[in-house]
């Protein structure tokens, strides 16, 4: 029998606020344990929570970016359970009336468009962290556990999808899309290693064609991007095997063990906590005014999908280039700024060039050359001396022919990264001005033809590939300054 998987994801995204959701403590990652706490987040007697406005706005913005309805009336609830990293004995979350509902995300999987429903987005506070004394090898007797409450009260959004996902690949694409979005609108840094994006999955399988859902298991602890697919693949196989061997899936919570590559039962439905949710009487219900929603909507940046489409239609970029340039909002913005600068300079110089050609030059430089630099130097695009202004200037130098594209890609870019000087200055200082004087180039062409009689013979016999060899030799001779277009023309003329 053929089976299909039914998957719903619950993604916890840590919001990028400076302070915690119900008190003023810092949310900075990696500080000494218990240095970012106060009486409120450690749950001392008599303290009260006050909602961080920024967190609340971030949740609404996320809802707007994921096509959700923003609830005009929403409230917090308490989720009650005992654990040492939960100082109040309850987590403040949302239950019956979440802030956002009924949204969706569009993803492309194997060339097919898929729409994944988003059930709800709600706000909640994070718990702290228990650190257990090592039992083997490490420090201590293994008898003690320590509690770090720095993370307690850090604002989270839980983004719950509909059970619309049908494969691990789709789940990964959905996660990727969601991560891109929250990073794009600046509400979460999407860092899975630091735990700012975490994912639990509800998984069931059913024979293809069956309408009803099978019994589901919840897989927890999927804390890395690459494990989303792996954990789901494992769990789906496991469930199919159980069914095919005549067994029954039991409703339970399972833990993904990334070392072993398996999921293991954590607790069954009977052992499940009764969280005794009830409205938190310490926080007044949240009423969201349309004015606020409109304001947040207006301040949302152009979202990645829209940008990609526009890059193709407006600048004539290939889909591939558009995809690469919009993976990060900073890159997309950088690209558009550089393009704007280049066009501005060309207009000033009175040079009329098709926007699409300039766009392609800018895109190529970013994708093939600048990305390489960034990777080598482990830097973000905004962290180098090469500003969009520099790139625009470089492109205008190439477009008006004052230097060659070869020079631009190599010596000049290197120099900008090193010194931060403007490309036109480098061109002048280093004598990198392109030779467009035909007579000067002709001399070099003649010299190269004279020096390589064998290659000339072979070219004339039809070995067209050798043209590149001649161009290379001429460039070497002119230290790369020869205008490649003229070199090509002259070579063809002389060799035919």
């Amino acid at each position, binding site marked *: 029998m053929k089976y299909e998987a039914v998957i719903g994801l619950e993604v916890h995204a840590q919001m990028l606020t400076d302070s915690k959701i119900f008190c003023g403590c810092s949310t900075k990652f990696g500080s000494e344990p218990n240095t970012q706490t106060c009486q409120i987040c450690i749950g001392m*007697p*008599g303290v009260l929570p006050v909602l961080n406005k920024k967190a609340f706005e971030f949740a609404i913005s996320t809802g707007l970016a994921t096509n959700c309805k923003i609830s005009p009336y929403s409230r917090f609830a308490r989720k009650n359970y005992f654990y040492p990293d939960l100082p*109040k*004995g*309850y987590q403040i979350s949302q239950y019956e009336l979440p802030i956002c509902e009924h949204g969706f995300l569009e993803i492309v999987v194997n060339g097919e468009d898929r729409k994944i429903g988003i059930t709800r987005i709600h706000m909640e506070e994070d718990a702290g962290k228990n650190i257990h004394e090592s039992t083997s090898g490490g420090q201590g007797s293994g008898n003690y556990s320590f509690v770090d409450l720095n993370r307690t009260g850090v604002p989270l959004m839980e983004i719950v999808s509909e059970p619309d996902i049908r494969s691990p690949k789709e789940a990964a694409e959905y996660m990727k899309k969601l991560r891109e979005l929250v990073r794009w609108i600046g509400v979460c840094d999407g860092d899975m290693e630091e735990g700012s994006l975490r994912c639990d999955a509800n998984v069931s399988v059913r024979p293809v064609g069956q309408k009803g859902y099978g019994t589901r298991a919840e897989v927890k602890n999927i804390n890395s991007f690459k494990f989303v697919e792996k954990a789901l693949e494992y769990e789906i196989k496991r469930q199919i095997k159980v069914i095919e061997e005549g067994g029954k899936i039991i409703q339970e919570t399972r833990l993904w063990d990334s070392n072993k590559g398996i999921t293991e039962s954590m607790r069954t439905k009977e052992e499940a906590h009764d969280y005794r949710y009830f409205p938190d*009487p*310490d*926080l007044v219900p949240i009423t969201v005014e349309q004015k606020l929603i409109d304001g947040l909507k207006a301040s949302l940046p152009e979202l990645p999908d829209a940008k990609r489409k526009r890059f193709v239609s407006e600048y004539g970029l290939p889909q591939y280039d558009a995809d690469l340039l919009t993976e990060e909002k900073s890159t997309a913005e950088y690209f558009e700024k550089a393009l704007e600068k280049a066009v501005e300079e060309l207009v000033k110089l009175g040079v009329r060039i098709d926007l699409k050609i300039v766009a392609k030059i800018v895109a190529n430089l970013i994708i093939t050359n600048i990305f390489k630099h960034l990777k080598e130097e482990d830097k973000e695009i905004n962290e180098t001396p090469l500003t969009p202004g520099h790139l625009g200037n470089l492109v205008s130098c190439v477009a008006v022919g004052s230097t060659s594209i070869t020079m631009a890609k190599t010596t000049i870019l290197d120099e900008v990264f090193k010194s931060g000087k403007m490309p036109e200055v480098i061109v002048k200082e280093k004598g990198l001005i392109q030779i467009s004087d035909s007579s000067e180039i002709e001399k070099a062409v003649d010299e190269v033809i004279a020096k390589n009689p064998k290659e000339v013979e072979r070219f004339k016999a039809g070995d067209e590939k050798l043209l590149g060899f001649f161009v290379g030799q001429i460039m070497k001779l002119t230290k790369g300054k020869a205008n490649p277009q003229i070199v090509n023309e002259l070579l063809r003329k002389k060799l035919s």
Partner: protein
Amino acid sequence: MELYRLNISEARELLDKRKITAKELLNSIYQRIESVDSKVKAFVTLSKEQAYEMADAAQKQINEGRSLTVQGIPVAIKDNMCTKGIRTTCSSKILENFIPPYESAVTSRLSENGYVLIGKTNLDEFAMGSSTENSGFFTTRNPWDIERIPGGSSGGSAAAVAADECIAALGSDTGGSIRQPAALCGVVGLKPTYGRVSRYGLVAFASSLDQIGPITKTVKDSATLLNIISGKDPFDSTSAPVAVPDFTKVLGNEIKGLKIGIPREYFIKGMDREIEESVKTAIKKLESLGAIPVEISLPHTEYAVATYYVLATSEASSNLARYDGVKYGFRADGKDLMEMYMNTRAQGFGAEVKRRIMLGTYALSSGYYDAYYKKAQQARTLIKADFEKAFNSVDMIVTPTSPTAAFKSGEKTDDPLQMYLSDIFTISVNLAGIPAISIPCGFTSNNLPIGLQIIGKHFDEESILKAAYAYEQSTDWHKRKPNL
């Protein structure tokens, strides 16, 4: 002169005229405590050292002619309001050694106005009870008869005021915990509108019902303290952004033409005859001052106690989860985490607190939530609506504060339900979130005080203070003092 007998207004005048010093006043209070508190047992902690520092600071301000309302006035605070650096126990073993690193909003405001904190008063553990017999430490006695209880849960504060062990006090009221002990001790107790006073730093019992208020010797003193502690607090989301009037301004205004509602559900067959007579006489008195009594009905009154004990315990079961032995307070050993939790809470909490945690946990459990918590919320809405409807035709409502005068220690400890019924006349007010005041209105044949409750509209403390003041000024009940 027995300075400890003074009320706030009298002490204010003497201090400002330099007839007495803040230190002399404080000395007198501590001497009084020394001589009577072994009988009354109102205090859990005395903060003498800090008190003298505060008195010194207050005196400087007074000398510079810059005294504020309670500058140099010795005040007792119920021990469920956090005081920075001073032990705050909630009369519970689980917080026996808890010293808050922060100050509650109300005590901050009192500090800003120059008060002198003399000590923390006893209560039923976590404010759960009506007699202070549930205190994890000891029972406070009624100054009018030390065989009897002072009421609760703010029994320590009410007894301290009645016994002149302080000039005034703060209590907290979740189901009657200010008004009932005030009635039983023959003093004034005011529960403000929910949201009028910040709860920040008040150790929560039932967050949607808890409210801090004054317990004082006179109505005017209550108005004075309410002026200080009222107002929106950015640290309490449930505190209301409602303008705070000067509550003392209306005192002395006529009450002619005021319509006072007499709810028939509060005058039931079989109720204590002495209480009924006193309250009816008080109503006559108000009538003679020009008020117009109107019989009204609050038809859902009979559901109030049940509703309250579902909602209050539900919230409490969650509010008290933080006392787990992990971070602060009492911790018992255990072989593993679960055993540590269980031992800590089994040994740290008293019987009544455990009973309420269990009741509340049950009411919120999956499968029972709809039948209990949700139903109770619906009943609460109906009870609230009863008052709203009544206030369409009357300006305030007058009832007895408590169905009985002070009962004997131990009389009801074995019967929680009987104990719960002590709050039968006060609980609805908390469910509706409206203000109410209890003032002395007579004595039983055993010389035990009787309280009159005046209930007002949302954020209309002015009207009930005005009526209470008019009544007080035309009677002498508040002038009587217990023999200690």
